[in-house]
């Protein structure tokens, strides 16, 4: 059953910021799939992809891993499986 740990409001704030930036990334990906020669859109994509990565690194240092297969900070606890899942928060 769900753990439903109580999480600080920073968790939700930072997560929502990541969701917003990743939305821009996703929109640009789909746009570029049908407009592959739009160099301005490629530039925007790179900018937001980099920003997303930066936000995720910050989030992961505080709340545990978000992305599969990335290096983890906490070596005492395997947070990937001990921290709550998206439907539990």
């Amino acid at each position, binding site marked *: 059953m769900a753990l439903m740990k109580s999480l600080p409001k920073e968790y939700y704030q930072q997560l929502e910021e990541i969701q917003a930036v990743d939305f821009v990334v996703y929109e640009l990906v789909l746009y570029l799939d049908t407009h592959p020669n739009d160099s301005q859109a490629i530039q925007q994509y790179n900018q937001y992809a980099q920003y997303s990565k930066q936000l995720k690194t910050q989030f992961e240092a505080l709340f545990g*891993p978000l992305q*599969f297969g990335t290096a983890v900070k906490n070596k005492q606890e395997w947070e990937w499986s001990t921290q709550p899942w998206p439907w539990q928060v």
Partner: protein
Amino acid sequence: MWAYEKKLMYPVKVSTCNPTLAKYLMEQYGGADGELAAALRYLNQRYTIPDKVIGLLTDIGTEEFAHLEMIATMIYKLTKDATPQQLRDAGLAEHYVSHDSALFYNNAAGVPFTATYIQAKGDPIADLYEDIAAEEKARATYQWIIDQSDDPDLNDGLRFLREREIIHSQRFREAVQMITDDQNQQKIF
């Protein structure tokens, strides 16, 4: 391969335990025009579609799995605290006796998912027109669910998903244009 990201595509909130709304949402979980059907349809069609459109089918197909996870989260949150009596009152007694509170790929009427909901014709125009129709049907279904829902938090998530169907439909229309342009060009010389 696919790599999991431990987050939803868009935040999912629900106001109260409401198994009736969960039942309606099953239409988008295991129904004919639901997110599972969409993901399986696009990711399967991409092997035989012209190269120009493979990226689009891969990325939209992948996004559909993120939508499926949002729908699952909505159903889970709307039913997790429901009593057997509440489930019965919502018309979910038949679901409960078979699955307890587990999710299952049924539509809103309890009919299990079937691969006959999707098509792969191998003809790029036929396949892409099917994809456009699927997105429009899913958009309409989201609207009908929103019309039945009195949960403002849930509706926020549903409106996001409804808007995504519009974007996907528009991208698929552009893909049709790319393919017809190619076909016309080949005829010239």
